[in-house]
């Protein structure tokens, strides 16, 4: 396995370019199904295979809290452009290698609405499920009616 260079202080985009050149894509068998509106069908998040390679390799990605901080900055009414990119993305110590399961959890906290993952198991039925892609319906027929099975048992 190739060793990750010491990347703290290196622009994140340059790290991604290094990863693209040096790491094999990793196609996860997992996806994340979630519902953030009762009036809409279920949404399905698919991890990017190049991003998964970075997550499993370690030493490339910033902590997920960096993205939360950027989101807070962008939500401010006087936001024009990010000024904390170097602090939060490029100079922050990169996190170490993750397992596939940890990578999916990181991705959920990065790319799924917080209102979903903070209270995914609250309420009468789960709002979010991690499943294998083979568990999705095999065709796109009735795609706009996909919902999480309300009878689904939630693992502790």
């Amino acid at each position, binding site marked *: 396995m190739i060793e990750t260079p010491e990347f703290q202080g290196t622009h994140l985009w340059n790290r991604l370019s290094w990863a693209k050149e040096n790491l094999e894509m990793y196609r996860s068998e997992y996806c994340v199904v979630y519902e953030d509106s009762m009036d809409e069908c279920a949404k399905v998040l698919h991890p990017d295979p*190049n991003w998964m390679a*970075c997550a499993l390799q370690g030493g490339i990605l910033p902590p997920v809290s960096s993205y939360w901080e950027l989101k807070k900055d962008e939500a401010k009414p006087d936001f024009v452009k990010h000024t904390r990119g170097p602090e939060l993305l490029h100079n922050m110590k990169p996190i170490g290698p993750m397992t596939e399961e940890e990578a999916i959890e990181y991705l959920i906290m990065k790319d799924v609405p917080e209102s979903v993952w903070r209270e995914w198991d609250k309420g009468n039925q789960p709002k979010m499920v991690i499943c294998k892609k083979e568990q*999705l319906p095999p065709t796109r027929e009735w795609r706009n009616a996909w919902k999480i099975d309300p009878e689904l048992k939630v693992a502790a």
Partner: protein
Amino acid sequence: MSVLELNGRIFDASTTGTLTLTGEGGAATTDVTQGLAKAWIDHTQITTSAIRDSLNISSITDVATGKTFPIAFTNNMSSSSYAGSLYASANTSDGYTTFNNQLAGGLGSKTTASFGHSGYSTGFVDSIRNDDIIQGDLA
């Protein structure tokens, strides 16, 4: 790690700043960094949505027929005022003659963290070929 030496300056993965080269005609310099695509993705919406290849993307979310949102960046853009271009075949075949003549594609809902992509013909339609290219300033 690849290293480029240019006029005595070393460029590798730790290089910061912009790269400027003499432009066409030799009269002025051109900023190469500004001209780079900062993110790109080739993905399908057919059967199980899947990313064929990409740069600077962490995930895509299949929202409904013909709709992918968000397509999330790993390295955020500095503002939401970046430029994007898209292609959606609006077809289940990806031959260069099998595009859908009535297609109207959408690339929008831009934030610094993500953007959305859709394909529309007489209704929203899944495409086997979806290409997006993003240019602009990184955070």
